[in-house]
């Protein structure tokens, strides 16, 4: 009986893999040449149109800024969904990092050993440096590899480092779930305001409001990068802090 079941499930796996292979092989092995027209256009006009030397930033905050707005909304929904699901299950998730485990007398020996001094020292010292590096990646996204999303993720890992490295007594506001949620909401609000501000000066939704005032067009991309970086950093940091069991 058990053997027959195993044979059937093996067959099912095999058939499913074969079916996916039949669909995916033409995609992976197509020798259609990659079109160069978009690259040629961007190479010739990208810097003049948006002011950003990093063409990837020029695309996702200039030509396709509307798409980026949708992306941040997806991220916002995913963060709220994750927090909702975790908070509804009640108890804190990772007991090694929550308050219970720090009560050294009642914690089981296995839990006590999960948190070594090494983690405290290394992550606590590295956290602020990672935060600064995240700010750098975020603010220089128009000149060098990086941008809002990448810098935001680095900032989130800095927040995780700080949350991992601090003992229970010396906590910072950056690892409080409520604070991160407020930063994320403020970031999203200012992203919407930055998108709408172009309409006031007549350059349209996601148009550059500073274009008429003689400012360089790249300033708008820097502003958008900073806002998106704050929002993404706070959102993903919030998610990670919640998964460590610090959400109330």
């Amino acid at each position, binding site marked *: 009986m058990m053997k027959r079941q195993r044979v059937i*499930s093996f067959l*099912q*796996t095999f058939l*499913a*893999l074969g079916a*996916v*292979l039949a669909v*995916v*092989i033409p995609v*992976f*092995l197509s020798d259609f040449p*990659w079109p*160069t027209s*978009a*690259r040629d256009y*961007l*190479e010739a006009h*990208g*810097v003049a149109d948006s002011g950003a*030397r*990093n*063409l*990837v930033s*020029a*695309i*996702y905050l200039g030509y*396709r800024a509307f*798409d*980026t707005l949708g*992306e941040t909304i*997806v*991220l916002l*929904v*995913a*963060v709220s*969904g*994750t927090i909702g*699901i*975790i908070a*509804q*299950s*009640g*108890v804190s*998730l990772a007991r090694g990092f929550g308050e219970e485990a720090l009560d050294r007398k009642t914690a089981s020996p296995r839990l006590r050993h999960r948190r070594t001094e090494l983690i405290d020292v290394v992550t606590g010292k590295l956290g602020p440096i990672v935060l600064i590096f995240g700010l750098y990646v975020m603010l220089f996204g128009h*000149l*060098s*590899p990086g*941008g809002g*999303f990448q810098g935001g*993720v680095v900032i989130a890992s800095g927040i995780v480092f700080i949350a991992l490295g601090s003992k229970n007594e010396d906590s910072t506001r950056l690892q409080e779930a409520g604070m991160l949620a407020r930063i994320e909401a403020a970031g999203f609000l200012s992203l919407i305001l930055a998108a709408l501000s172009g309409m006031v000066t007549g350059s349209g939704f996601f148009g550059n409001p500073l274009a008429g005032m003689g400012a360089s067009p790249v300033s708008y991309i820097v502003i958008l990068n900073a806002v998106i970086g704050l929002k*993404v950093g706070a959102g*993903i940091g919030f*998610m990670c802090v919640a*998964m460590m069991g610090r959400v109330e």
Partner: protein
Amino acid sequence: MLDRLLLLLLFLIGFWGIIARRNIIKKIFGLTIINSAVVILFILEGSRIGNSTPIMSSGIADVVDPVPQALMLTAIVIGVCITALALAMAFRLYRSAGTFDIDEIRRKIHDEAS
């Protein structure tokens, strides 16, 4: 050609992880592997038409296509969202069933229903 075949293999490994493994966490790993395979495929194909990074300064010409890079930025962010949501749901299932094994979860649901 070899690089594409390896990416195809990576994709299939991820798919196999989703359908054949019983542990939910390993299924989520499979999702992430599929996502990475597709992202790498796009970046690789977009880079075939140029040689230098798409950061313009004087003397830079013949850059790679920046469009797939910008699109894959979106794909990576969405992948992170999917992973986080899937992990949260796996956590929820673990809280109620006490296991990550889908067969056991199904058996427990069946037991409770009858």
